[in-house]
């Protein structure tokens, strides 16, 4: 018995589970475990790549941070991983006002913080206030604004909450799904000391017993740079049960190792020190499969189960006043289509992703299967078509070095940059430059420092210092998967044209369609608009998409309770920790 306190925690959880909370039942379809198969107890061991920075939910910014982990990202509503729809979570029901600008949520009764206090509407209101105080500098600040206008969160009574939106919004539920933090802890400090007081709270050297969580976990201990130990929040099981009525989570706790090096992470999984692992390269996959084959490791790996939610692309600079030749070239859709024909996506997948990647053609990540428009035209790898398009642009002859020139003798040549140190991007750029050379396009590839690159991308005006940049984006909404600052001409990540004005009529069209889709609440209609946008995106090729890696989750067979295969993907992962249990 290594962990006497875990047993104690389990006992209290059982005893306290007899209250009369409005219970939320986790459906059987979210787990492969047969009813009654799941065992109680045990510790799940996982790893994260970067160290934790703070326990404070209002200043945390890194991926996989502590507040997200202990709260399990519970909010008023959650997405059903089986179909992506919004379903009740900490709210039991909601009503939408006739003008669709207000949603009133009924908060589940009987929910408690990990210190035993009741969770009520005040918690959401205070959390909202602190997130939207600009002096706090919360990473969630911008998510409470729609087109620069603020969302309002107000209390109707202890168990009723009203959220008011400045305009109808497809992402209304995503906004409402934020995690509440305890008003009884943050409220008094915020009132007395304001933002400065909040920023001083819950640092890494705070007493872990002071950290209060609404979700399945509380912090057991934290060793800087090494590991975070979580234990079950006994109050969570009062309102979260499986179909048989057992309180959740099943696990006594979690142990999260901080492992900065990918090889070290692989070694930890191979030697059975961590239970969950997502290999990202074929080299890692092969090591896991070999160890399993040789009976050295009892594990499951799902190769290629879905694409990842990232995209890699080449973007051309449309604002080059001082170089009219290039400006005209980069603004020509034909040129960009030709460039798309020169992107050998299969070679990228083979060389860069070791055979396990997915080609991308529009801004919709391939993992969003419901959103991808299969009818959108694809300008796939085809050097002949590229040559033909370039001929149509006037590049008919080749100079003595074998590069295409136009009638004025101007050579088809441009610089391509990506961030130095990112090997995958450097390899993609190398492949592109080599294919381009074969048809006579001179691409001067030059990796540069990341911060310099961002500086160039973000430079404003009608004369910018770069030609083409290969970079990637990740993140973004699932209800309206087009970037709010990427698609509209005024967006800060409208990278190809930062003049603030639309140049191409199709750009204007995309901006308008984006806003229409964002305010459209009907999913089917929204998808229709999305399809239309993808067709325009494909023809305009403002951004030449390349390919992205795939998702291959692996886990040690001592843990059970993962999603059925058809639910596993890069968006929802392979399991919920609430339904995970230790089988052996």
């Amino acid at each position, binding site marked *: 018995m290594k962990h006497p306190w875990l047993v104690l925690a389990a006992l209290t959880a059982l005893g306290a589970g007899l209250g009369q909370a409005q219970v939320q039942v986790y459906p059987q379809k979210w787990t492969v475990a047969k009813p009654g198969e799941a065992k109680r107890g045990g510790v799940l061991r996982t790893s994260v790549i970067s160290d934790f920075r703070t326990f404070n939910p209002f200043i945390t910014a890194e991926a996989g941070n502590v507040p997200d982990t202990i709260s399990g990202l519970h909010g008023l509503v959650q997405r059903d991983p089986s179909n992506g729809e919004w379903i009740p979570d900490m709210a039991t029901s909601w009503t939408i006002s006739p003008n669709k600008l207000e949603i009133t949520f009924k908060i589940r009764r009987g929910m408690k913080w990990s210190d035993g206090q009741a969770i009520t509407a005040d918690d959401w209101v205070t959390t909202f206030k602190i997130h939207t105080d600009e002096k706090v500098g919360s990473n969630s600040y911008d998510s409470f604004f729609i087109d620069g206008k603020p969302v309002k969160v107000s209390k109707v009574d202890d168990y009723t909450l009203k959220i008011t939106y400045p305009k109808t919004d497809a992402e209304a539920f995503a906004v409402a799904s934020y995690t509440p933090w305890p008003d009884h802890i943050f409220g008094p400090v915020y009132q007395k000391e304001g933002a400065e007081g909040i920023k001083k709270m819950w640092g890494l050297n705070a007493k872990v017993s002071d950290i209060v969580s609404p979700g399945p976990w509380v912090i057991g201990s934290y060793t800087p740079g090494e590991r975070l130990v979580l234990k079950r929040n006994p109050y969570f099981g009062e309102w979260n049960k499986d179909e048989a009525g057992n309180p959740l989570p099943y696990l006594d706790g979690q142990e999260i190792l901080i492992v900065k090096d*990918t*090889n070290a992470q*692989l*070694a930890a999984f191979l030697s059975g020190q961590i239970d969950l692992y997502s290999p990202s390269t*074929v*080299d*890692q*996959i*092969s*090591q896991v*499969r*070999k160890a399993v*084959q040789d009976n050295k490791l009892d594990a499951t790996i799902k*190769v290629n189960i879905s694409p990842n939610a990232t995209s890699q692309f080449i973007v051309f600079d449309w604002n080059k006043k001082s170089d009219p030749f290039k400006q005209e070239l980069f603004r020509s859709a034909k040129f960009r289509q030709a460039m798309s024909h020169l992107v*050998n996506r299969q*070679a990228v997948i*083979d*060389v860069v992703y*070791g*055979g*396990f990647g997915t080609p991308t053609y529009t801004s919709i990540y391939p993992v969003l299967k419901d959103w991808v428009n299969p009818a959108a035209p694809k300008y796939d790898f085809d050097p002949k078509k590229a040559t033909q398009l370039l001929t149509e642009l006037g590049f008919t002859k080749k100079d003595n070095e074998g590069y295409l020139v136009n009638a004025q003798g101007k050579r088809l040549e441009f*610089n391509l*940059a990506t*961030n*130095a*140190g*990112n*090997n995958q991007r*450097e*390899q993609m750029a*190398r*492949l592109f430059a*080599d*294919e381009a050379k074969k048809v006579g396009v001179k691409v*001067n*590839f*030059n*990796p*540069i*420092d990341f911060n*310099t690159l961002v500086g160039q991308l973000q430079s404003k005006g009608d004369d910018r210092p770069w030609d083409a940049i290969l970079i990637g984006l990740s993140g973004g909404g699932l209800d309206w998967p087009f970037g709010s600052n990427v698609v509209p001409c005024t967006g800060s990540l409208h990278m190809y044209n930062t003049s603030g004005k639309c140049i191409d009529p199709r750009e204007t069209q995309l901006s308008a369609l984006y806003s229409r889709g964002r305010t459209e609440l009907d999913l089917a209609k929204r998808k229709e608009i999305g399809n239309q946008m993808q067709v325009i995106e494909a023809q305009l090729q403002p951004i030449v998409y390349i390919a992205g890696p795939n998702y291959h989750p692996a886990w040690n067979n001592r843990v059970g309770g993962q999603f059925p295969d058809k639910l596993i993907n890069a968006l929802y992962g392979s399991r919920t920790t609430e339904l995970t249990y230790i089988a052996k």
Partner: protein
Amino acid sequence: MAQATPRTLSASRTRSQVIWAQFRKHRLAVWGARILLVLYTMALFAGFFSTYDANYYETYPPSNNHPPSKIHFRDPDTGAWSRPFVYATKRTLDELTLQPRYIEDKSQGKFYIHFFVRTPDQPYTILRLFRGDLRLLGVDKPGRLFLMGTDNFGRDLWSRIVYGSQVSLTIGILASIVSFILGLALGGVAGFYSGRPATMSLPLTHLFQPGVGARAWLGAAVSTLLWLAIIAGIIAITVQFLQVTHGFSLLSLIVVALAAWAVWGIARGLLWKPIRIDPDDVIMRSVEIQSAIPDLFLLITLRAIFPPSIDALFSFYLITVLLGFIGWGGLARIVRGTVLSTREQDYVTAAQALGASDRRIIAHHILPATATYVIISLSLAVPGAILGESGLSFLGLGIRDPYVSWGLLLQSAQEGGFASFTDRPWVLIPGFFIVLAIVAWNFLGDGLRDAFDPRKRQ
């Protein structure tokens, strides 16, 4: 003097002869020199010795992570000896590891290995002066000859090793030369002149004394201006500090007091008491200052300043040299330490008594005492630079495509993790070349050290 000159000349001739004879006795050193000769020849004629261009690969059929080609000397059917040949290969995916596997495809026939092949599609240059396309070895297309396998692009590793030697065999020397010259010179000066401060200002009161000429006036003017600039700087910083920190506290009082004291000291020096500064202090304190320079940020900044149109290799060499200018501190300190001890030796005092010039004493009596340390640290600095360059690749600041170095090759082996050991061990070959070069350098260093050591001579 006229008689002495020929004597020294003949003596030095015999001296170099002695050294040479001594060196040749050192068998390992001679071997080291031979290995280096081979490696440097390989680097110089990289185009000729490589089988492909360092960046040549085919996307179809792919040849990524191809093992070294099996070279046959016997006909597999008849068993008869034949000219060496290879078979074409077919790529499949291993069912278990999902890694590419290559099997020989005999249906395409044999591809004999030819000597002195022309590859017009992959021309090369020697020192960017002579163009050529003649290569030592090759096979006819579509056959492929990978003497040491390929990387994940399908680029021939042997060719990359050969081209990589160009960078790896020069970068270490280049990085060391600047810092060693500076370190030796400044360390020597600091140690020798320690405790003999130089006068850095000529006070007004001294200027009007008899015997003060025009040159002194000029010197006084220049030094006074410099000191005045320093005073201005101190005052400016202090005022800014007071503004930034708002109002008075004990801290600002201390800062003001210190500044006033410094200004007073300089002013006194400009008026009546000359400022005398120990060169040892100046040099050693600048060593401390430069040790605080964050190399990586300097590198990033320099990279950002250079326009992208500059050749990547050229800018890398330039940056290496620039870093040499701030990398002499450690050696300077150690040379100084040795010099501090040596200058008190009897033979040095004797030379001084005989009226030898400082320069002569430093060059002929003091610096030789540091030879052992310098030769060893040089032969350690070379591997240090080769490996340091791979560390820079780790951070995205090293050599990169289209150029290649051994460090970069080793770095990509590291990136493959355990698969580099189990699935494609040939990517470790660059490591053997690094070992070879470093062993050769160190043998050579040992030999030189012994050869220069007069006490070792028999």
